[in-house]
């Protein structure tokens, strides 16, 4: 493997805030870099010295297990020092603002801040107040760029391409940062995007981005090469947006019967955590179409690539 991944264009960004502001070439640069790092995960010694001496801080103002763990592990595989900061057990509960919190953490020598926050735009705001690189690990319903990148990487690795594919995003689009980042990334890479769910969860205005909106999964499913199943966010009050889980499952649940009517090589993604029996049945989640566990592995490679690129390529990864 080429351990000195050379992106097709020079990477100049200090932060990764979202896919909306990235060009097609920049997205491909991340995916190519991630491909190079993918191999590291399969070795016995799963570590490269690329970020030796760098400090990566996970600044999570919202609960997360898999994204935080994935970033931590990615940083460790690049030989960076990592530290977690979890709001709630910290001074935030004593009234400190998140900007002060971030500045304090930066003063401890953080080179990269991986930020998750329930409010859209918070990582963007942070870039105006700290010198460190900021990676958006999810800002409210806005963007979750590394999740979309790992979805893109998974599609590309398993299907060999993204251009020309039809990708269905199913479920709670309105509240989903994963949906927004996926829409931007997929459209830039030439896929056709169909958004599917009840009208209360799928804002029609997203058609203006170039997506198709549908409320009928059975109509849409046979057209899809890839379906990405978005989680119903039970932490939000969903009572107002659909009458019952049973009805949601009946209309939008991905069952074996439904999958049978799909293309035979349908690729099934889910950002997780999934609610088995709500968005999809266990046999579908664990079935032959499912790439859910590939996504997790690819997530590590994508996060290594992003950490590596935003840190600058001055360091020889070997």
């Amino acid at each position, binding site marked *: 493997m080429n351990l000195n991944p050379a992106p097709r264009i020079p990477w100049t960004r200090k932060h990764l805030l979202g896919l*909306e502001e990235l060009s097609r070439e920049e997205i491909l640069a991340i995916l190519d870099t991630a491909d190079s790092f993918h191999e590291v995960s399969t070795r016995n010694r799963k570590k490269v010295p690329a970020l030796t001496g760098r400090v990566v801080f996970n600044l999570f103002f919202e609960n997360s297990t898999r994204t935080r763990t994935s970033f931590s592990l990615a940083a460790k595989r690049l030989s960076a020092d990592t530290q977690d900061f979890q709001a709630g057990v910290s001074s935030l509960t004593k009234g400190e*603002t*998140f*900007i002060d919190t971030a500045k304090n953490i930066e003063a401890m020598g953080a080179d990269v801040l991986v930020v998750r*926050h329930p*409010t*859209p*735009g*918070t990582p*963007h*705001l942070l870039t105006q107040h700290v010198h460190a690189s900021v990676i958006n690990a999810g*800002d*409210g*319903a*806005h*963007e979750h760029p590394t999740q979309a990148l790992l979805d893109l990487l998974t599609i590309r690795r398993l299907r060999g391409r993204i251009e020309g594919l039809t990708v269905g995003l199913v479920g709670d689009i*309105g*509240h989903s*940062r994963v949906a*927004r980042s996926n829409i931007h990334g997929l459209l830039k890479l030439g896929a056709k995007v169909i958004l599917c769910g009840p009208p209360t969860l799928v*804002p029609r*205005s*997203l058609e*203006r*981005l170039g997506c198709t909106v549908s409320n009928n999964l059975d109509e849409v499913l046979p057209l899809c090469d890839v379906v990405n199943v978005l989680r119903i966010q039970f932490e939000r009050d969903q009572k107002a947006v659909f009458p019952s889980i049973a009805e949601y499952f009946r209309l939008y649940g991905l069952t074996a019967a439904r999958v049978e009517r799909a293309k035979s090589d349908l690729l099934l993604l889910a950002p997780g955590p999934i609610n088995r029996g709500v968005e999809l049945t266990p046999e579908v989640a664990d079935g032959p179409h499912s790439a859910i566990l590939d996504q997790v592995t690819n997530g590590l490679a994508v996060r290594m690539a992003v950490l590596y690129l935003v840190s600058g390529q001055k360091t020889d990864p070997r």
Partner: protein
Amino acid sequence: MRTIQISGGRIIDPSRNLDGVGDLWIGRGRILNVGEGYDDPEVILDARGMIVCPGLIDCHVHLREPGNEEDETIATGAAAALVGGVTSVACMPNTLPALDTQGAAEFIVLQAQRARKANVYPVGAVSKGRKGLELAELGQLVEGGAVAFTDDGAPVASASLMRQALTYARMFDRAVMQHCQVPELTVGGVMNEGFESTRLGLPGMPAAAEDIMVARDIRLAEITGGRLHIQHISTARSVELVREGKRRGINVTAEACPHHFSLTDECLRGFDSNFKMNPPLRTYTDVEAVIEGLKDGTIEILATDHAPHAPEKKLREIDQAPFGIVGLETLLPITIKSLIEPGHLTWPDVIRALTIEPAKLLGIAKGTLAPGADADVTIIDPETRWTIDASKFVSKSRNTPFHGWEVRGRARTVIVAGEVRYTLA
């Protein structure tokens, strides 16, 4: 008090349809005359190339005192008004405690007298504690100096309370000023609901929330015969509703704020809370409709909704930051840039909307250069170019979306009660 001759300016007084170059004479705190006739003035102000008009009136400001003096005080807000060319402001009752008693109104009047800057007129709360449950003592508020009523900061949500307020206020011939918004449609909202809010993942506040209450309140004004004033109108449909209401002879007036005819919801793309206000920045269609409403007289008043917030409050996650921006010191240049330069309104139109029209709304003997009137006069340099710099604001707060804008025009000399209280350095 000294006699002042303001010489050679373009005197614009829409209350008397006056627009021409001449001299304005002031003495003993009153307007003496426009034209010739007085010898040996003690002070001569050279106003050649300037616009001389009645002191501007802003019928919608928040001065934060009592309760939030870290944001603004009556003294600093009244001083910021002068810098903006504004000689009279009407301050909203969403203070702590709410401005809902005669004593609270008298406190405002007293603090304004002590400050000796712009005139300050209290607007009393419609409901006790602004809770929207029962009428405040409107009659005693009037005795304390209140010139109108509103629960601004929040709408009077209850249709029945709004009906009572419009009916009861008739005996004082005072307007009920309404922040029109159906609260249950805007819960948790941060910005205008639409493509931009969807793209940014931010909770939206639909235009319909405003439209529905405007429609409701116009109908309530019709059945009560009360005076309804729509504050900070921001949607195309609301403008249409007010236009139709006026056509039907209903007693309804409306005000528009500079940010609602100069900015759109696209400004939120940077997640800067200085673009977060309530009502929120809307779309181009709405901006065009507000301008059209100003042009055809549907909206007769310009106001700032000056809403100061200390930096530590505004510098938060966008959903945590409070709504509102300061506006007094940017009122004129933004209005010039958005309304006069593109040719939507003339100088007399703009001055009318900032003098005699708000004076009529508030029922105050201001906004005119008629002989004998209080000598509140603003001298505007309409051409001077400058850059808006929030760090130089006289207001205690800095929360403006216009920082760094290259603009034209500002107040040069401001006279209140015959006294020069502000001169541009």
